[in-house]
């Protein structure tokens, strides 16, 4: 579903992502792990077509993000680290706007909005102004915005950051519910989250892929914390583990 091949991104002299490759199959929830500044957000921004890679390719649902950027963008739902909210709109107006620019036909717009309002537990705040909502609700509106066009790929950049424990549990339950037949890439540095949600784990460190494997394989003889620390300690970052990882 998502295939990242030899992706490199430079910002001037700084190399944010170095020659990374990984893939996620249909219906898979992929945990994208790494310390702050490892290149997670950069990679996700490239996958969603927000910015171009310096070199390398990404294919989403068989479409190349460079050549068929439009087709890719139709199929991806993206929740950036800061939910992209227009704070002066009401929840419904906002979701209707997002639905329209994501290409939902006028006739189906009401149904799509109702559906995500229900899925994301927003039914009680439909006419509230987005800027007046609590952080937890804003995050849900962010998720609703990513889901409204029923995308086959969901890219979530640290969806639970800054939430209280109760809200974190809510959002996680929601993500688990959403996964279903969608491919989900979830970036985070909260390890238990990965243990609860993901089938596959990619650990990225200083722009390199440190490891790509299933969660079950990685946690066979050690806890995820130990595995994570072991991989991010290796600063050489040779993606040896990636080569033998099962697809």
């Amino acid at each position: 579903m998502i295939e990242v091949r030899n992706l490199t991104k430079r910002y001037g002299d700084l190399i944010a992502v170095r020659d990374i490759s990984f893939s996620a199959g249909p219906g898979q929830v992929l945990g994208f792990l790494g310390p702050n500044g490892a290149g997670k957000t950069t990679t996700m921004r490239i996958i969603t077509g927000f910015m171009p890679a310096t070199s390398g390719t990404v294919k989403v649902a068989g479409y190349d993000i460079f050549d068929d950027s439009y087709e890719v963008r139709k199929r991806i739902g993206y929740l950036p680290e800061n939910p992209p909210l227009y704070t002066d709109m009401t929840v419904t107006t906002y979701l209707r706007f997002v639905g329209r620019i994501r290409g939902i036909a006028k006739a189906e717009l009401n149904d799509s909005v109702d559906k995500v309002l229900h899925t994301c537990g927003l039914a009680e705040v439909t006419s509230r102004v987005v800027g007046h909502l609590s952080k937890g609700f804003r995050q849900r509106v962010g998720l609703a915005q990513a889901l409204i066009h029923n995308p086959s790929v969901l890219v979530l950049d640290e969806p639970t950051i800054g939430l209280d424990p109760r809200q974190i549990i809510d959002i996680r339950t929601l993500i688990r519910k959403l996964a279903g037949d969608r491919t989900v890439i979830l970036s985070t540095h909260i390890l238990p989250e990965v243990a609860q949600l993901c089938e596959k784990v990619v650990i990225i460190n200083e722009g390199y892929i440190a490891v790509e494997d299933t969660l079950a394989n990685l946690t066979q003889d050690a806890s995820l914390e130990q595995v994570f620390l072991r991989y991010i300690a290796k600063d050489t970052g040779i993606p040896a583990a990636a080569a033998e990882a099962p697809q």
Partner: protein
Amino acid sequence: MRNALAIAGKELRSYFVSPIAYVVLTGFLLLGGWFFFNLLSRFNFLLSIYSAMRNPEAQTRLNLNEFVIGPLLHNLSVVLVIIIPMITMRSFAEEKRSGTYELLMTSPLSITEIVAGKFLGVLGFMIIMIGLTAIYPVILLLYGNPEMGIILAGYLGLFLLAIAFATVGLLTSSLTENQIIAAVSCLVVLLLLYVIAWPAETAGPIMGAVLKYLSLTEHFSEMVKGVIDTKDLVYFGSVILLALFLTHRSVESVRWR
């Protein structure tokens, strides 16, 4: 087109759900009203003096178009130079700062649709803003007999001027994520276009003509006098299209830099 209209609607709504639209429109109309009131009382004063002097020749030279509408439009154009950078500074800069730019850029929209949407939004706001000042000529029409054609030509000029200003504002806003930088650089460009013809008299025949052609005021003045010349329409059209084209380029560069 549907997508562009969705964005335009969102833009226009964002002016009216916040106090921005009301503050801007009130301020604009307040200043406009003050200009109008003063120009009109000066006109009345001159009229009473000339009739007291029994000078029919001077009296025929006094007309509402030249003494009220013309100066009013010129004054409003100066207000537009200052006010439009503040209206357009948000358009792209605010989206970048708040992160909603990522939503626009990762949605299945073409850059043309995004820029067209932003443009149509601000165009709608200009129509409302300039449209509201139509109250002044309407008052004149009710109580006097100004020439309708000249008024319409002048208003067309003011409208084109506002659109040209606004597209420059969109351009500067697309170049930065800081609204102050967007507003100040737009203001500088507009003021420069406003005063660029000042050295025209001393700059020599060729340079002088070039400077005069570049000046917004020269083209605007012609239209205020009631002359709709293709030359002036082409000028405004090229400023608008060039600014929109550069905005398109600037937005595109974010996607493929």
